[in-house]
């Protein structure tokens, strides 16, 4: 638009102020995007779950095991096409400061249950063959500097003592949401070392028809209700969602801080706009004398505010997207697949718009309403 040079020139009047304000807006929107992405990432992981997979856990609590004998009965349940199981191991590597999930699984049935684990075929076979083999997520290779074929020793916490495995396979998740830093090993290895039959921590089932999940769940829970260990069965998604809720009221915390951040930045921007406006009364008078309408002057100020907000948004939102989207950030394993969603970017853009209006409207109205004659008296 032909007025653009005028707007840009005004912004360039106090370059330092303009730059500082833009950077403030950028920082605020970057922070907002980061905070909101925590919520969206948790939401995404709570929505994740194979539609045809269900989890059976002990109704008393996840920390209680289920009898091994349930496997056959579960397999026989109508609607269930496959059964696998796992047990939380809870081992630590090195100084134990970097937490990662590690558990014992029934190898062939578990891998069949989770096609999302992408493993080179030869490695997969090597893992299945060897009882002391371990399957690790690709991130663990980076974090700990492990290599395929290396022996690693974990310190058991639930099952005390040192436990040594040989890394035979590395998996890459086909979905970003799945954590890429888990370690899995043979159930038999656990049994062998402990010299007894371990009870699974939970069972994973594949069902024929996802729509029938509620019925299958009810059937299973009814069957075991009066047994030694009552069960709680649900879709994998419900199970995941439950884990996310363990965090507590994170959503509220993040949103509150996000709001505070945006409000604080609004003050900074509005203040800067007001200062610029105050210094320009004589110029506004001159422009009106030349014949610029009140409406045009209103728009000029709004566009100026808009430029600052826009530049800040590009910098802040763009920066966040670049940092989290391309990088491999997952907050020490707690937030796999951390990324800025289009929704967050949209809201961020909306905030920039709101910022424009809120910071620009008062100076713009002042400029539009400026009584020329009075202002001119100052010009003389």
């Amino acid at each position, binding site marked *: 638009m032909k007025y653009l040079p005028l707007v840009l020139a005004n912004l360039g009047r106090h370059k330092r102020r303009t730059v500082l304000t833009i950077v403030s807006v950028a920082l605020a929107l970057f922070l907002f995007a980061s905070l909101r992405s925590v919520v969206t990432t948790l939401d995404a992981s709570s929505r994740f779950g194979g539609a045809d997979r269900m989890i059976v856990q002990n109704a008393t609590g996840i920390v209680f095991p289920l009898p091994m004998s349930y496997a056959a009965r579960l397999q026989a349940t109508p609607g269930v096409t496959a059964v696998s199981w796992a047990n939380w191991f809870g081992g630590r590597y090195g100084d134990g400061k970097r937490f990662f999930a590690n558990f014992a699984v029934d190898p062939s049935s578990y891998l069949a249950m989770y096609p999302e684990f992408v493993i080179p075929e030869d490695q997969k076979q090597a893992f299945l063959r060897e009882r002391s083999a371990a399957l690790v997520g690709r991130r663990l290779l980076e974090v700990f500097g492990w290599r395929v074929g290396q022996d690693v020793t974990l310190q058991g916490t639930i099952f005390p003592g040192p436990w040594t495995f040989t890394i035979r396979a590395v998996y890459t998740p086909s979905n970003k949401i799945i954590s890429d830093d888990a370690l899995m090993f043979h159930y038999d290895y656990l049994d062998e070392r402990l010299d007894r039959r371990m009870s699974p921590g939970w069972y994973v089932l594949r069902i024929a028809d996802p729509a029938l999940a509620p019925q299958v769940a009810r059937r299973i829970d009814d069957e075991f209700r009066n047994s030694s260990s009552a069960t709680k069965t649900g879709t994998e998604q419900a199970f995941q969602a439950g884990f996310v809720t363990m965090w507590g009221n994170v959503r509220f915390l993040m949103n509150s801080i996000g709001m505070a951040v945006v409000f604080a930045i609004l003050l900074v921007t509005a203040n800067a706009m007001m200062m610029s406006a105050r210094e320009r009364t004589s110029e506004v008078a001159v422009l009106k004398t030349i014949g610029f309408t009140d409406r045009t002057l209103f728009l000029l100020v709004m566009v100026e505010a808009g430029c600052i907000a826009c530049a800040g948004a590009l910098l802040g939102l763009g920066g966040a997207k670049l940092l989290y989207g391309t990088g491999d950030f997952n907050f020490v394993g707690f937030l796999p697949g951390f990324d800025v969603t289009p929704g967050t970017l949209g809201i961020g853009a909306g905030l920039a718009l709101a910022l424009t209006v809120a910071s620009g409207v008062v100076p713009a109205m002042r400029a539009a309403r400026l009584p020329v*004659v009075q202002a001119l008296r100052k010009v003389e």
Partner: protein
Amino acid sequence: MALVEIRDVHKSFQRDTQTVEVYVGLDVDFEDGSFTALMGPSGSGKSTLLNLIAGLDRPTSGAVRVAGAEVSALNAAQLAVWRARHIGFVFQSYNLLPVLTAYQNVELPLLLAPLSKKERRERVTVALGVVGLEDRMDHYPRQLSGGQEQRTAIARAIVADPTLILLDEPTGQLDAKSSQEVLKLLRRLNDEFRKTIIIVTHDAHAAEQAKAVLHLEKGVLVERQGTPA
């Protein structure tokens, strides 16, 4: 019909709690192509008359007609449009926007008209040529001398080819030499280009360059010298 007709204009305004009466029934004409200097002591209402003619202010009663249009009857939006087309205004100081170059400052009135960038460039170049500052078009006001600033302001005042050029104490802040430059330019605009000029001034030299002088004292026309056209 005169280009500017002031008929029975009364103007008063509030200063704090007092009402100040500037004009009580003023009648005066300015012919097309005239070059008039308005002189008088401070507070005699010279600037107010200029503001009334330019439509920046409204008379309490009476009529102000410029080129046949009753300026005093137009609303604010209409006035803005009208002003862009008909008036070129030059102040004593703070004329130019410091963030724009001389070229951009002169271009401002043209942004209000539906002209292409090329057409704007042509007119600005002509205007700056007339005032003798073509070689300075990319300079910022802070890089210009006082006289050059005012000449740029005049270029801006003529670039849209207005009906009327109004100047309020244009040489008030300038030294003798720069004042001469400005006044000579104005004289040229009137002689060569037949521009109608009304200039409010304390400067006796300006009065010399003008073709007619009006003395205002306490809102009343006291003396008239020279020929109106």
